[in-house]
């Protein structure tokens, strides 16, 4: 197979390498000889460690995406972002007063949003980042929580924002406040916790725990399965 590999040329931090076509940017870098320490994490598009900036030939624009989820292209210029030094405002959920303006109190720069949409264009998850920042300005926590939910916190939005907003920390704040204070709590869950604490299941669990293997197998066979 290796003899027939179609090769492409990529520029990793300015230096040219020949790599097989069809690899992700991450695997192309590894093929070229990089043993990655920074700029690599889950390799599945969930952790946001591999934020990568790139340019295509004949195009002056800089694009951003995740190295583990983007296919390397011929003549692509690639550089990774090793770390995002953006600040998370010092707040604790237990000490937060979830009033209308708590986002602006912690992240006043949100008010500086010029609605340029650079953040949304930089987002590898293709989220409507600017829209949730605007929702934050309006104090619409539910909307921020929903629109920011798929955020992998790679930080590319914050790195490109001319108003110096740290969008992904704003989203995290809103989601936690929404989950803890605005979303309805599960009554059946609280009830079950109480039952467990009062020992409702202790005897049944004692019996199960002391069963021989054969008895367990028998009990397992007999269990009914919810349709």
């Amino acid at each position: 197979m290796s003899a027939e590999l179609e090769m492409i040329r990529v520029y990793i931090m300015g230096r040219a390498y020949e790599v097989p076509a069809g690899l992700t940017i991450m695997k192309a870098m590894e093929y070229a000889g990089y043993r990655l320490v920074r700029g690599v994490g889950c390799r599945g598009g969930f952790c946001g460690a591999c934020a990568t900036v790139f340019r295509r030939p004949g195009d002056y624009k800089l694009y951003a995406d995740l190295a583990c989820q983007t296919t390397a292209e011929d003549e692509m210029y690639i550089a990774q972002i090793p770390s995002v030094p953006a600040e998370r405002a010092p707040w604790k959920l237990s000490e937060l007063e979830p009033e209308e303006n708590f986002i602006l109190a912690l992240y006043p720069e949100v008010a500086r949003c010029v609605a340029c949409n650079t953040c949304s264009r930089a987002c590898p998850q293709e989220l409507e980042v600017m829209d949730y920042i605007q929702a934050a300005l309006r104090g619409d926590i539910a909307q921020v929580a929903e629109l920011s939910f798929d955020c992998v916190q790679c930080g590319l939005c914050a790195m490109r924002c001319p108003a110096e907003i740290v969008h992904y920390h704003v989203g995290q704040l809103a989601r936690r406040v929404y989950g803890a204070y605005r979303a309805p709590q599960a009554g059946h869950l609280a009830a079950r916790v109480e039952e467990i604490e009062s020992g409702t299941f202790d005897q049944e669990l004692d019996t199960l725990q002391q069963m021989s293997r054969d008895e367990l197998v028998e009990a397992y066979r007999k269990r009914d399965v919810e349709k």
Partner: protein
Amino acid sequence: MADAYPSSMRESIGRVEATRPQRMGVEPQRLSLEERREVLDQFHPDYKEEGKRALAVGPSKGELVPHEMADLLEAYPLIDPDRVDLGQADYEVDVLVIGGGGGGTVAALWANEAGIPAGRILIATKLRHGDSNSMMAQGGIQAADKENDSPPIHYLDVQGGGHFGNDPELVRALVSDAPEVLRWHEKLGVMYDKDPEGRMLTIHGGGTSRKRMHSAKDYTGMEIMRVLRDEALGRGIPTVEFSPVVELISDDKGQVVGAVLWNMETEEYSVVRAKATVLATGGWGRLHIQGFPTSNHYGATADGLVLAYRAGAGLRDLDSVQYHPTGAAFPEQIVGLLITEKVRGMGAQPVNVEGELFVHPLEPRDVESGAFIRECSSPEQGGRGRGVVTPTGMIGIWLDTPMVDLIHGQGTFNRELSAIWRMYARFDIDPSADPVLTYPTLHYQNGGVVIDADGATQVPGLFAGGEVSGGIHGKNRLMGNSLLDFNVFGRRAGIAAAKWAQRSKPGKPTLEHALRYTQDLQAAGVEEVRKAPSLLPEYRGKKTLARVVDLI
């Protein structure tokens, strides 16, 4: 837009579409325990004897483990114990947490709850805080919180999934703490999927007898991990990143009293002295056991097993590897990545090249994987030869994903399974319109370090929680019990470590255990060709590696 599927695969998709109307609403018979056994014996990779060997040294000497794991346990210390100066501590803490994934973060939070000030805790992690398998968990977390369910019913499911080899005390802890864990998450602000009245939306997972799979879309692990990390940040718990542990430190009384860290960038070591240590290093997916691709994150190289074993902790159930039935098999760029079991939980069926449904979609994972491999194996190998072949020679099973929208309404897939939808959309495949090709992928370390219900290992001062530990899941973990596991046992280990730290008296720090282990290896005739822990997998191109020279 060009078709992402080549014509040979497109033809098979035609057959999948043709059989779909008859398959809708059909639930095949589940296999009996005897039929399960037959599939496993013949087709599950764990049941191939040539894949394992007995350990030559250490507390679990004689136990069978995969060769890839044995190679790391029968290996010499990465850092020469004689060249480490333990006299000066760079960090002095009450509780050291090794690993910044789910288990480690939960342990740190609960050590803090149990009275250890944030500044007296240290999380040391190999990559970044949060880079872990926890972050990647998609489908859900189990807890018996509905009226028709109970911890005892959950208990039976866990035992049956694990082939009744689980530690009863640990299973009891798992199922009893589950609702409390979810309640804690709710208070921390985790956004679980709920109906407008606040009732948790729950579905089946493989091997569950009640619908107890709770989710946050298909980003369940990411949502939980993000919140835990944010909570740790808010409390000011110190974290040192890119600093894996390369050896534990023991004292003259045989207690673990800290660890040696190694800075992956400056390559210097540093010494942590701790009154209690929690091991939460995760699993082994990146060992690529038997050559399988993996769904795991980059750092899943079994480091914690190596560290604990050298320090004298026993291991269990490492003969059993979890292969998740639905790893991506096409396109090539995403081979091995996970397609959550939630997709099957929402009605997508696995079908072969002819569009035939050949197994119940929600058998326990090992059985489901065995059935996939049987369907794909050639008749000469005893299989059925009905897999779908890709242009690069991978073989797979269709997961009939368009059924999700047909059952739950158009737009459901995109909304509730957005991670999977996005992963395929990047390669011009719409899983709500076309099926996706899957094959088992190396997913989870079922066994691990022996612990008790407090997360205590057999070595005083060393606690463990999460994927690194064993016994909870027996020989096979059910879906939704790993997110649960790291929360339950991370919490128990964190609290127990805090209590230990409040009364322990560390003696003189040494690396005696590593020297002793080295002597045992020599006595057993193990050649000094391998070092461990391995820290990172090796993915560099062969041509480059052949010419690498270490000059500066």
